[in-house]
């Protein structure tokens, strides 16, 4: 999985994650409290300019814009129908300002920098918070590790279905995919416990002992490489 962060050397990249998020929060509150069309128009233009400085990839802009266009069109249509078109315009300007700024922060801030910020915050809550931070780090790493594998497995299941000449259906895909997910989870938990991974307590015994066949034992190292990166 490839982060939405874009490496670069702009002013925005050099600012720390903390100040950027704080500024985003302040801007969010300010934009939500303002109703003047002139001010909001200026804010939206400024936010777009800041986003342009961050140089986001076209694909990201496209995927965000499609979702936004739908909601804003709906709101504009509804407000025009209700005879409150000014409300609709204010709404669209606010959304453009907020989303552009937030996207600029995401594009110029390393995933790890925001993760560190969250984990630092958790660590302040004593030993329990520290344990939480360690677990969060482990959980995020596990998600990133297993998404490509599950996507590849879903692809394989779909090919198997096609080879049998069956129609696509959600249960036909989801049930075997879930079995694989839960079975892998049992194996990974066992492996972590066996290595005494810090930050986690002892597990209960797995409900299902790892199956003996190597094909169904995703725990056996080395794990298969994902076939392709879905997010690239």
């Amino acid at each position: 999985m490839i982060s939405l962060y874009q490496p670069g050397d702009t002013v925005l990249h050099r600012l720390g994650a903390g100040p950027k998020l704080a500024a985003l929060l302040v801007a969010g509150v300010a934009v939500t409290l303002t109703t003047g069309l002139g001010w909001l128009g200026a804010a939206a233009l400024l936010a777009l300019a800041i986003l342009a400085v961050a140089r986001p990839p076209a694909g990201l802009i496209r995927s965000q814009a499609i979702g936004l266009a739908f909601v804003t069109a709906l709101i504009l249509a509804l407000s025009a129908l209700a005879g409150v078109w000014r409300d609709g315009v204010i709404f669209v300007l606010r959304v453009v300002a907020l989303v552009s700024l937030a996207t600029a922060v995401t594009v110029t801030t390393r995933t790890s920098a925001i993760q560190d910020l969250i984990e630092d915050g958790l660590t302040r809550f004593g030993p329990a918070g520290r344990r939480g931070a360690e677990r969060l780090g482990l959980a995020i790493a596990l998600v990133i590790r297993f998404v490509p594998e599950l996507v590849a497995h879903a692809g394989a299941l779909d090919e198997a279905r096609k080879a049998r000449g069956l129609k696509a259906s959600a249960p036909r895909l989801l049930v075997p995919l879930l079995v694989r997910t839960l079975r892998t989870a049992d194996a990974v938990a066992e492996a972590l416990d066996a290595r005494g991974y810090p930050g986690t307590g002892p597990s209960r015994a797995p409900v299902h002992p790892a199956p003996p066949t190597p094909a169904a034992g995703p725990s056996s190292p080395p794990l298969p490489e994902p076939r392709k990166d879905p997010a690239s």
Partner: protein
Amino acid sequence: MTTRDLVLVALFTALVVALGVIPGIPVAALPVPIVLQNLGIVLAGAILGARRGAAVAMLLVILVAIGLPVLSGGRGGLGVLLGPTGGFIFGWILAAFVTGLVAERIAPAGSSLGRTLLGVGLGGILGAIVLDYAAGIAWLLAVAPNEAGLPLGERLVKTTLGMAVFIPGDLIKIALAAVVTHALSRAYPIPRR
């Protein structure tokens, strides 16, 4: 939370992310293929239970916030959370929790298909439709201005009507989640708590 709980939550979250990557699946009653990602949220509650289900949704929100493209169509980042539909994403935490809570009570693991349909159905409708839409609409109304001074009730009704187009698709997804939960409980049962 044991190691196994932690890993279950992480891998289930990976599954929900994967459901946003793979193409939508055609359903007979609908003109467009359905995206399975929010079905994954209902499944998280129904299969893992309230606590771990909510943890899946929370982990997903954190992944979005740190800037990973984990939502369907490769969306992600703070822009999605702060955007007009951000409330629906935060609402997933509530949706998974309530789905799990109701499903645990009405249809414990090993229940018949009918009971699972009832438990996951009621939980899903309450969690993924009533509460998630409430969170989404509350968020939307907080961002949307009200210069014309419309009464809150009228704004609520209008916004809800605008969202109503999604409810049939959501109902189908919840029914699918119940069928999948039942099939899975026979293929690979795990304790919900």
